[in-house]
């Protein structure tokens, strides 16, 4: 399955709305001007996403994972490779990465992941006019393969993953990460249907 260009556009716009909220929250928190950008959005099957992510990232990655349930359910994961995560932490807290991924850094990444995921999934929820509830996010730092492996084991049904390329702009720096949202088939179909409706509404 592939997203049509118009679907991509609509999705991007939707995510941007959500990201705007996230960026605002982060800006308030740190006092720095922060913005989030979506350079690309794509849909892949789980096996495909595995491949894709392996291409995009290597080494250790920090993943912030939130499970959401409700009328739609799935998994939201913010992925940042180690360097990006540390840089983001440094930029947000103004603390040097003296000791690598110490407790404080882990918490900060978790919070960032939490804010971004909430914002994005919240945007979806608004679109679908449903209430979704999330688990407390969990941070893991492990190899890409491990992250994906965990994913694949849990998911038995054939599912799709939305990969949202995310770019943090702050303090004259850019940090690149990936938001992966894994949905069941029906959830995705619903999402896309509502997306179309929204698009028509907006443009019409």
């Amino acid at each position: 399955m592939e997203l049509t260009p118009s679907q991509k556009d609509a999705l991007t716009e939707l995510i941007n709305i959500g990201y705007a909220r996230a960026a605002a929250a982060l800006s308030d928190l740190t006092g720095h001007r922060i913005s989030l950008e979506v350079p690309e959005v794509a849909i892949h099957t789980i096996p495909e996403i595995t491949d894709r992510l392996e291409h995009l990232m290597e080494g250790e990655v920090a993943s912030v994972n939130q499970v959401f349930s409700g009328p739609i359910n799935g998994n939201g994961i913010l992925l940042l490779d180690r360097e990006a995560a540390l840089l983001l932490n440094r930029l947000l807290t103004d603390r040097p990465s003296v000791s690598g991924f110490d407790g404080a850094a882990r918490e900060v990444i978790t919070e960032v992941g939490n804010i971004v995921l909430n914002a994005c999934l919240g945007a979806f929820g608004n679109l679908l006019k449903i209430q979704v509830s999330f688990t407390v996010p969990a941070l893991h730092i492990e190899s890409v393969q491990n992250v994906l492996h965990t994913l694949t084991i849990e998911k038995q049904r054939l599912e799709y993953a939305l990969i949202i390329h995310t770019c943090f702009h702050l303090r004259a720096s850019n940090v690149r990460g990936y938001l992966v949202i894994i949905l069941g088939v029906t959830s995705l179909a619903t999402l896309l249907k509502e997306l179309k409706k929204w698009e028509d509404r907006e443009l019409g």
Partner: protein
Amino acid sequence: MASPEDNTGIKRELALLAWIQQFAPYGVFTLDESLRIQSWNSWMEIHSHLSGQEVIGRGIFDIFPEITERKLTTPFQRALEGESSVLSAALHHYLLPLKSPISGNETGRMQQTARVAPLVAGEQVCGVIVVIEDVTQRENQAASLIRQHRRDVVLAWALVHLLKSDEPRKTVRQLFFKIAEQLDFDTFLLYLRDAESDAVTLYTAGGISDCLQKDFHGYEVLAEVAKGFEPVIFNVVKNHEEPAFALLKEAKISSAVAIPLRVHEKSLGALCFASWSREHIAADESDLLTTIAQYLATAVDKENTNLELRRVEAINHWMGAIVESSEDAILSKDLNGIIKSCNHGAARLFGYEIQEVIGQPMSLLIPAGQPDEERDILERMRGGRRLEQLETVRKRKDGTLIEVSLMISPVMDADGKIIGASNIARDITERRQAEQKLAESYQREKLAREKAEAANRTKDNFLAALSHELRTPLNPALLIASESADNHQLPEAVRLNFETIRKNIELEALLIDDLLDLTRITAGKMALNRSLVDVHDILQDAIATVQAEQQEKKLHLDIQLNAPQCLMEGDAVRLQQIFWNVLKNAVKFTPPNGKITLETSVPAEGQLLVRVTDTGIGMTPEELARIFTGFTQGDHAGGGGGSHRFGGLGLGLAISKNLVELHGGKISAESDGPNQGAVFVIAFPLARGIKTGMEPAKPDAAGSFEPASGEMAVLLVEDHQVTRDVMAQLLRRRNYKVLTADSIARARELANKYKLDLLISDIGLPDGNGNDLMDEFRARFGLKGIALTGYGMEEDITRSRAVGFVTHLIKPVRIQSLEQALALVKR
């Protein structure tokens, strides 16, 4: 109905809940949909100091209004909507204002990480659960690590940039910005000690306005720090009342630390950092800055040393250039005599390439067999002598030897120990050669001079010998002629012939004397015996000598000695010669019965004029021109061409002119023409300072006999009348009392009668030998004598001496000889 499994399950869950409530090492509390507290675990009770009873049922925002103030209500509300939130300590610091049990936190507050999540029952959110974790210690450690890290960054930067920089004192500005960025300082001041004036002044500052900086220039408080060894911390500046701190307050400084910059014992200045906001400087900050100050001090000291090195290098370079560019040969050697340096001048002098010489022993340049004087000199230098000059020989590459003058001085190390010697060599071969030539030429000149002097002496001797040799043959001839002319036993005609012979021999003698005089004059050997003389007296003497001839020719002599002063400085003998010459000429060239006038006058002050006028043959203008040059008499006098009618060489006037000029006078001749007579004028300078009326004592006339004191009595024994008369007159004129005798018998008579002082006697007397007479008188009266001799032969002289004649005179006697003889006797 719950199954047993359900019961166990529930029991287990309840147990878990109980545990969480009681033992969980973190805070857990729940809220209902209205955000009122439903549960409050132990941890929360302990750390909030609020028991469950106090809080349960109350709204969370009521209990902690701060949450609202801090705008942290959102996570709670979101939780009710199903969103869970993570609040990291790094970004939020804390959720609830709880005190930290751990000290060391600036705020005393507990640093927390919180999670706010929805409580879901079934599909419904029924409340909110909040978990709070105390991360204070972790945060403290993290902060500490970060601080440390920041310091390390600063230190590393400082180390690299300060020590790498060529101008570390300028790098301090950048350093400050780095420090300010990492460590929260707002101001810095760098004071450096000026090398020359030794005063500590502000070099650069940051974070202080320009006008304030001026005041900081001589700020004592900070300059004082430079003298110390420890950093000085100024905390809570605002509380310091001392006037010295006013400046710090003016610069908005709340706290500061000043660190002295020192290297070894040297004080280089001070570095000061200050904060506007913080009132305290932590000890570890001070330590860090002290470390940085040390880097700076090291770097500045290095910079100073480099500057000094460069300066010294420049000087060395300059000196080296001077040595190189010098034309002199400059070499240096170490204590082992190995050549250490050689400039182009030296290479050129010795004919080597510089590389060929360096490292070689100095003996390379010393000729074989010659001792190395430089070694001894070096020894003497150790004793304190600084400089030596030595002239010696050195050897060039091609083996040729050169003479050199060496200037040697010691080379000393910084402690004053001699480590070698340098010498500057000058090639003096040329100079030596020149000196040699000079010495040789001097020798030659000396030899030549000696030769010349010898030649002169030879010439003098020759002249003397010549005179003697020329004259001697005349004496016997003259004697014989005289005697024969007086011998009345001979016929008249014969007597006349002998008279002629006598006259001519006398003339001959005169000529020879003239010739010798002239020779002496031209050789510059005419010496005058100067004394105060009366010209009139001398003229009288001269007149006396020409009297005979004048009387013979019946010439009228008109004497007018009208000069009121007639004293002059001169040689009496020579003056007489002059006057005699002129008179003689007048007599000679005036025909019989003519007139000769002799006048003296003083025409002008200090000048004596002697005029001799004759009525003789006169002179033509040509003759007048030549008359004083010698060897001509006047052609017309000689009758042109052949015969010399009047005889003589004509030297007399030439000699007279010379003599007149030697006396500072002038002689001139005038004539109106042939046969018109002639006038000779001689002018002399009168003796100065002589008043008119002063005259030398005149001699007494002959006759009165008793000698006055001081006058000598002379017995003149001479049988030839003319000779006798003339000599007597001469003697009388010279203040002698004269008795004359013409024989030995008569001489004895007179000697018996009168007291005598001197005997002047002819040797050949009619009645005996003058020598015997002398002998007798010497024995009897202790008398001295002068012999008159016609022989002049060796034996006679010897005999006459032996008998007591002090000296002898050879006839015809010349006046100067007489005077000399008299002088001899008087001594």
